[in-house]
């Protein structure tokens, strides 16, 4: 069995937990998020022609009250940066997180999820900013934890990226 460790990073309340809540096999209670700062679930996807078991580490939102533990990122094969499309600062915070954990995350494939795609009217993200990041090689995927839009394909794509690395 091929397994891959996947992390979800992002500001609090961007919808990380909601993204995994309905689309992965929940193994542990969500109370772990507030206790040890991480919750681990698993999801089996087919990437290419291989079955891959993703061990999804949902890391508690990093804020002034609880700092994200770098040790949780160790050994990850790929990761999601999750931002809330209706809150511009969450994308900036995602960038900041990536910078902060550069030592651990350097060279590891990642994908940026722009969540809450069902609320496009309240969209705050600057397209120019996104284009600039895309030009630097960033991959974006609009997702909606509410409708499920883009979630499955995002996991599949990240699994493929982890295999290619």
């Amino acid at each position: 069995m091929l397994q891959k460790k996947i992390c979800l990073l992002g500001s609090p309340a961007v919808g990380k937990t909601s993204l995994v809540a309905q689309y992965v096999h929940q193994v542990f209670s969500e109370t772990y998020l507030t206790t040890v700062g991480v919750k681990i679930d698993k999801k089996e996807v087919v990437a290419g022609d291989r079955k891959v078991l993703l061990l999804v580490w949902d890391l508690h939102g990093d804020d002034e009250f609880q700092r994200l533990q770098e040790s949780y990122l160790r050994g990850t094969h790929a990761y999601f940066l999750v931002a809330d499309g209706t809150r511009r600062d969450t994308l900036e915070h995602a960038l900041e997180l990536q910078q902060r954990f550069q030592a651990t995350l350097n060279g590891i494939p990642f994908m940026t999820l722009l969540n809450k795609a069902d609320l496009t009217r309240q969209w705050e993200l600057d397209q120019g900013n996104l284009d600039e990041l895309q030009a630097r090689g960033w991959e974006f995927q609009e997702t909606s934890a509410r409708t499920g839009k883009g979630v499955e394909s995002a996991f599949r794509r990240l699994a493929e990226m982890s295999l290619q690395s």
Partner: protein
Amino acid sequence: MPRRSPTTTPNAQDELERLRELILGNAAPERIQKELDRLRARLDDQGIRAEEISRALPAAIRRSTARDEQLSQALGQTIEGALDASVRRNPKPIAEAIFPIIGPAIRKAIANAIRGMVQGINQTLEHSLTPRGLRWRWESWRTGVPFAQIVLLKSLVYRVEQVFLIHRETSLLLHHVAADDVRLGHPEAVPAMVSVIQDFVGDSFSEAGGLQQFEVGEVSVLTEHGPEAYLAVVVRGIPPASHLRERMNRALERVHLEFGAQLGNFQGDSDPFADTETHLESCLVEEKRSQKPNWVSASMLILALLLFSIWLTVVLVRDFQMKRRWNGFLDHLGTEPGITVVESGRRNGNFFVHGLKDPFAADPQALAGQHLLRPQNIQWQWEAYHALTPTLVERRAAALLEAPDEVRLQVLEQGLLQVEGRANHAWIRRLDLQAPLIPGIRKVNRTALQDTDAMALEQAAQDLESYTWMFPPQASAFADLSSDAQNRWLEGMERLHRAAVRMGLSMEGQVRIDRQANESESLATERWQNLLAALPANLRRNSAWDPVFLTEGSPSLQFRLAWPNRHSQD
């Protein structure tokens, strides 16, 4: 075809030289000769040939094996013979060589045998009635855990239930083994959480080395770390930590030794680590609780069984006796006249009997008592009827007729009531009236029954007839009658009177006059009145005397004593 001569011409000699140059170059003939000698020596020298073949043989075998199975088939018999000869000569090298293969195979076979034995023990316990067995069964029922598992858990000091081999950097599961009857949840996700907890605790207390052990309910998780991977074992009960950790370290060392390269290049593919199973299984150890026989419990159990047996025996014997008495009682009822049992049996532990019963039949409750049965424990239901058996008819007649002691009743065939003995007239009249109305009686024969009143009447009449009252001529007063004779006459009249009253009879008498002596009828009347005056007062008071001359001019005055409707008087 004609063969050409081997002789050479000068022209041919040139051609041969050219050919030699083309094949051998410009080498000198001496050098060529030397090379030929060397080649001949290689071919002739067995040592050199063996050396050369030994170098080429591995590659040749590999190529042959890859091409087809001819070499395997060719060598098969030789290898078998060689093995046979080797084992006969010295079996130790072969035994040591195959030990790594035989070890796991034997362990597996023994594990299967033990599993079968445990199942046998479980089955024995399942059918046992020990308090502990019952308690475990109750616990199994309450918790929903299979009984066999409860038995196993309760009889173990500790047991390693699961072993996880975890990649240290990624926290991914490399391999996992578990005891046979352990329920597996999500073994892939457990390593990650164990790593998280270790990191969390390590970071929280800023202590290097991380968490070595943590406990969850009855389960402990022990970890041992290696450079690339670590082991986490799940233990139920209290393990001897040093002993177990030693095993874990040994297994971890073997894994690092044998799978160092795979660990260093681990990219999430756990398949290569399936071969670590033997090492991980070496950590699946357990220790059973010593099962000392509990003599107190055993003796208590034996005593309880003994008491139970006694109680059961008593109950069965009593039940048997009760049934026997009940059957005897029913047989008795069946022979008892005037009782017909329609239904009988046992309902809700109580006996019942339903049927028909003549009121003059024997009392069933008294009969039950005769058979040592408690009537109050029997449900009775009787419908009344008249039985026509002679015994019952006789009993019924005796009860209804209230026969005097001196009377004997007997019912014969065809409903004939035979009455013998002595009875007064009134009872005989009652017999005549009532007997034909009694169910079962068709005829009455009382020829052998004496009427005591009739006999008394007859006797009194005889006594009185021996007395004659004599009147002097022309006189109306008695003459020459002693007082003794007078008293006996009066007593006789009394008896006559009583019998006549009982029998409802009247009496007649005569007073004679002598017409030849010119005795008048008035004299007769005076004589009668004097006679009447001599009677006791009760006879006079209760009697109506009607003197009548039978015929005109008759010498006799006939009178009648009558006690109409006075049968019961006196």
